[in-house]
């Protein structure tokens, strides 16, 4: 980070916002930023492994109950899923722009971009809400709760178990992400970030990209190929 930050900010520590101070156990601000970033990357690795278990279960049951999976996936709403994919990719894009504008000291623009990201996330959840209520209404539910009648194949309940677990856990991540984005938005409004200190924006951004990325795998697997 050091070289880049130096180049962008031009000045050294003086450009750090007044609220920021280097924690006593770091030798300099850059070490602290690097450590923070490394921590976030490691955290993202754990997230991938968490979802990895579910992807693995998906692969196993799909090969075991292929006809059920094909039949069940026709009951997912591709249009809504597609809209949500676009919404999330857009939010990832605005998030990336927000990091960039934070780096360039454009506080107002950062606020705006973060607000758009937040709105997209909320939109995603609204669409998800409609999808879920449809499924619940039709009895397209996990395992023992599955009540939809007109199914030809054996185990659609397993498909919906995986669908609800994966999208549910993903949804929880979206909610947490919204909390985090709101947090940096408020801090940004208090002028806490600058070209010399934007680590929280960047780290929340990394998290948000992961949330987006997981969805980019979920959508085709669940909605398109089944």
């Amino acid at each position, binding site marked *: 980070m050091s070289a880049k930050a130096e180049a962008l900010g031009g000045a050294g520590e003086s450009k750090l916002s007044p609220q920021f101070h280097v*924690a*006593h*156990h*770091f030798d300099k601000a850059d*070490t602290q930023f*690097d*450590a923070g970033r*490394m*921590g976030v990357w*490691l*955290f993202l*690795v*754990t*997230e991938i*492994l*968490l*979802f*990895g*278990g*579910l992807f693995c*279960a998906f692969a*196993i*049951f799909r090969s*075991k*109950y292929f006809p059920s999976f094909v039949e069940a996936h026709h009951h997912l709403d591709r249009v809504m899923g597609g809209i949500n994919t676009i919404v999330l990719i857009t939010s990832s894009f605005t998030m990336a722009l927000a990091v960039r504008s934070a780096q360039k000291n454009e506080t107002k623009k950062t606020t705006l971009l973060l607000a758009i990201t937040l709105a997209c996330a909320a939109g995603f959840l609204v669409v998800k809400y409609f999808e879920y209520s449809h499924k619940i209404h039709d009895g397209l539910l*996990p*395992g*023992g*709760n599955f009540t939809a009648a007109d199914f030809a194949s*054996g*185990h659609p*309940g*397993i498909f919906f*178990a*995986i669908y*609800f*677990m994966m999208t549910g*856990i993903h949804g929880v991540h979206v909610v947490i992400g919204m909390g985090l984005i709101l947090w940096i938005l408020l801090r940004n409004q208090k002028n806490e970030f600058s070209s010399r200190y934007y680590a929280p924006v960047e780290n929340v951004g990394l998290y948000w990209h992961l949330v987006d990325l997981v969805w980019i795998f979920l959508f085709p697997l669940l909605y398109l190929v089944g």
Partner: protein
Amino acid sequence: MANTATVDELGHAPEVRGKNYLNQTAGVWSWLTTVDHKRIGIMYLVSVLVGFGLGGIFALLVRLELLTAKKTIMDATQYNQAFTLHGAAMVFLFIIPSIPASLGNFFLPLMIGAKDVAFPKLNLLSLYLFWIGAIFMLAAIVTGGVDTGWTFYVPYASGVSTTSVISATFGVFVMGFSSILTGLNFIVTLHKLRAPGMSWYRMPLFLWSLYATSIIQVLATPVLGITLLLLIFERAFHIGIFDPTLGGDPVLFQHFFWFYSHPAVYIMILPGMGVATEILSTHSKRRVFGYKAIAFSSVAIALVSFLVWGHHMFVSGQSELSSAIFSFLTFFVAIPSGVKMFNWLGTLWGGSIRFTVPMLYGIAFLFLFAIGGLTGLFLGTLSVDLHLHDTYFVVAHFHYVMMGSTAIAFFGGLHHWWPKMTGKMYDEKLARVGFALTFIGFNWTFFTQFILGTRGMPRRYYNYLDQFQPLHAFSTYGSWVLGTGFLITFICLARSLKTGAPAPANPWDSTTLEWQTASPPITENFEKAPIVTLDAYERPAEETA
């Protein structure tokens, strides 16, 4: 003695210096809100010792029940609960957090000359997560117990059992995050906070073992998290993933579970190996033989450990081909373990061995780990495991590695670093008595179980054939000796807090960095940031001459 530029100013006795991390601030609140890795380490230490005590009580109850072939003190359901709670408490409340979270937290920053871990607040958060998880687990005990075994196998755990499985598994789930965050913190700390001059190859080997452990914590624990979450949903909402009547697959649970839990056994043993390395080198005044071999074998063990989980499922209907592959890979793990074993012996060779209390634990570790590891190879052999699976042989095997190796290393480390942590020396004689009873009682209890196992005594049974009774009774008597040994050790350490003589900065004449500051250390660890000029086990020229 010296390997930093700042030693001489620091080797004072504590009363000369005044302030240290223990008396810097006072009051319960100052502890609960501290971000000092040393205080957090101490709080972890107390917590895991409580967990150990709890697990120990259940252990003695289990052994007491097995004294006779029929009912002794409890009925079958209570017995199922007793062994489950024993296993769950020992694994999740004691052994997994034991060395990394207590000794590791305390010494990792000291050993690299840092002021703290990279994320002190996160460190405190992981302690709180540990406590919250532990509360859920304890809540399970009072709200109906758990009787599934520590492995929570489905479909029993997801449907049949009527006990508080959800509370217990949710507790483990939360504790998993605590473990992940500790691992993450350690990795970043080792990468970013090493003092000037402290290169990777100058780090004490305990830190390499913690690094390897942290990798496993970060990579394996999330899989346990998702597995337990699925189990909880299965039990609460019948989602069907593990339920055969709904098309689910119970064996998938075993795969998921062991994908975490086999690497987790290395979360348990690697730190113990690290502690043993420090003890063996310090108390024989020898540089560690084969530094890099030990360092890299830790990392190798961590990586290979991800590839062997199937050896717990040889009789779970796994295909013969997969079983054969898992068996082969299991033997492969033995190589880095063997490398360590020979390097430890090489370290002792020609050293001036001092039979201090930590050293006794260190040598016991070598002895017991050899037995535990080699019997692991018996079990990794397909044809042998078909007979030994789910017998007392397995019980004996894992007690030799978990209790005989990790717990012994933990107590060795506790005695080794006790003067540094508390600033007090302990009564060597009493500590030796505690050690001797522990060592004798341990072998008495568990070696017997190897014999029981080879004769066909299955594990987790409450009644058994009369022919096993003499050996079972013998094992139970051993458990009393073992229990007495630990009791004496605790008394000895507790007494040292009150009446122990003040500890000098470096009572064992060790070369590693944590001994170059006062006992107990000041809150900032070092009065002046250390600059490292020597390897971890290197003595300055004037001393070696």
